[in-house]
């Protein structure tokens, strides 16, 4: 186990800077997920920690030791790649044992270690098979096994589940989480899937355009988003965003007004974020009313797309058992405490 620290980490290709002074502290045994849309710099950050990309500026510390100029093999890390990167010409046994080729261990010790790892990953029966004879999930387990076998201090995962189908992804997500609970190593995991990030991480690091937008627990990211980007990126379906104005001690939005306890300058322009979970279809008069444009039944609940006038549409949640009818006029209720307020720059108003 080890700590990982990034200090003002910069990556530039020529004159183009793609990662701008990243700062991050990963604690011993922590499971941190870097999440963000494509091109946000999460994989680049991971590859720099692995030593596969040169650091343009700043420092990477593993266990308080600067590793900027160390070769990947000297960093005692292991990495699982998106495409598994297991060697098609080698058996599962040889793939798992590949990382031990340069280890100063006896053959018996190496074999014992391979068997141990295979047992942890339930791959003992497949040790003599070639990767082509394995399913996607089993291949991913082999890739994880190869990472585990050297007993590294830090595990790096680069979107390892993105090639799996939805069911297998859920299963592997659980397995990786269990594995972390079992071995307790420090894990830095990269994904663009916010559900993966939310379900697995101790802390998530939300990134955009080479900047960290927020670092916090999944609950903090969901309930206390630092800005509109985080608010919309975390949570599915995405948070509703409505333009609003603070005027006469009341909040005016979408043609409606409501009384909220706020201390803002008069005529402040705001963005109000409301999670679809907090916007409930009800019979009683609510904050908004409108016509249902689209229904998306999800089983336990139904997503309702409601036209609330002025060309604005919001997503609300309704019962899955008794969903409202398409085209019906409905009221939407909201607890003002669940509203998220952002200033004109997109930053959250505390």
């Amino acid at each position, binding site marked *: 186990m080890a700590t990982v620290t990034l200090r003002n980490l910069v990556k530039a290709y020529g004159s183009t800077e793609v990662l701008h002074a990243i700062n991050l502290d990963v604690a011993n045994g922590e499971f941190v997920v870097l999440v963000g849309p494509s091109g946000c710099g999460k994989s680049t950050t991971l590859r720099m920690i*692995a*030593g*596969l990309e040169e650091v343009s500026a700043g420092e990477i510390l593993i266990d308080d030791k600067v590793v900027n100029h160390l*070769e*990947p*093999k000297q960093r005692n*890390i*292991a*990495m699982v*790649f*998106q*495409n598994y*990167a297991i*060697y*098609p*010409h080698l058996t599962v046994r040889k793939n798992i044992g*590949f*990382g031990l*080729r*340069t*280890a100063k261990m006896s053959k018996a010790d190496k074999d014992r270690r391979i068997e141990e790892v295979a047992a942890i990953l339930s791959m003992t029966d497949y040790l003599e098979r070639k990767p082509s004879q394995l399913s996607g999930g089993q291949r991913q387990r082999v890739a994880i096994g*190869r990472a585990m076998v*050297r007993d590294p201090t830090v595990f790096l995962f680069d979107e390892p589940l993105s090639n799996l189908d939805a069911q297998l992804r859920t299963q592997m997500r659980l397995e990786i989480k269990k594995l972390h609970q079992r071995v307790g190593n420090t894990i830095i995991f990269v994904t663009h899937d916010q559900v993966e990030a939310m379900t697995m991480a101790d802390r998530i690091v939300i990134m955009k355009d080479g900047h960290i937008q927020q670092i916090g627990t999944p609950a903090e990211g969901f309930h206390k988003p630092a800005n509109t980007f985080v608010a919309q990126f975390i949570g599915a379906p995405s948070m509703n965003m409505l333009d609003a104005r603070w005027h006469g001690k009341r909040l005016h939005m979408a043609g409606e007004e409501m009384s909220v306890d706020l201390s803002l300058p008069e005529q402040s322009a705001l963005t109000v974020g409301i999670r679809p979970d907090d916007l409930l279809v009800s019979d009683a008069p609510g904050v908004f009313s409108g016509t249902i444009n689209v229904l998306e039944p999800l089983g336990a609940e139904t997503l309702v797309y409601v036209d609330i006038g002025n060309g604005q549409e919001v997503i609300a949640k309704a019962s899955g058992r008794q969903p409202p009818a398409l085209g019906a006029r409905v009221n939407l209720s909201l607890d003002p405490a669940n509203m998220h307020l952002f200033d004109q720059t997109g930053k959250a108003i505390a």
Partner: protein
Amino acid sequence: MSDAEIKVSAEGLMRQTGTYKPPRDPMQIVRWTLLFMGAVVMVMPLVYMLSASMKYPHEMFEMNIIPREPTFENYALVLSDGRFLQWFVNSLIIAIATTVSAVFFDALVGYTLCKFDFRGRYIIFIAILSTLMIPTEMLVLPWYMMSLHFGWLDTYWGIMFPGLMTAFGTFLMKQFFETVPDDFLEAARIDGLNEFQIWWSVAMPLVTPALSALAIFIFLGNWTAFIWPLIVTTDQSLYTLPVGLTTFSVEQSVQWELIMTGAALATIPTLIVFLVFQRYIIRGVAMAGLKG
């Protein structure tokens, strides 16, 4: 029922009973004819070579394919001549050594040009490629001068050195290494392998079909090489098979039956290589998009 409908239903019935034969495409007949003619042009010299190797000298210039008095005396004569075996061994040594060397260095240079980013990489690649445009006949003189000055005339090394690394092979391998995902190499780098180990243990096994195809091309090319071995050797004991066979023609006469017999025997290794590795040759030609 219209004629068209009757025709359609009859065709359906024939399909059901399995007696339906699709109409012949006239273009297909043309294609097959051209293919047959091409095959005749390619195969006839081989057939004539085999036929001539079993003829007596007086029958040599008759165009009959099947000899009137077939004989294996020519084979006995050629095989009993110790020189033939020596030339055969020389050819084998040179073809194998050159193949091993060229495959090794072509793959190493191709990998380096493909997977490492360094200043001048593109210029080096273009320089190597540009040598493909120079015909062998033009290179013979500088090769000879080098051999003369370095004392390589009449040595195995002298015969082999121009083929120890090839521009074609370097280009071929570079293209194939493009298909090896970088993730494999990076995973090995993290696992602690050095760059040579990564090339040898990870990248090379992933391009085995290309290596096989390249090895076959180089082996066949060296096995049949004539001009350079002829120029660089004067000692008969160092002759390769194609060069040695020319000694069967003397000033007054050419012993065609012996030349044909030697040529037929020389074909055996290439036939074995082809039969064993033909799927690699076909795959290699298809993948490289180049003529073998």
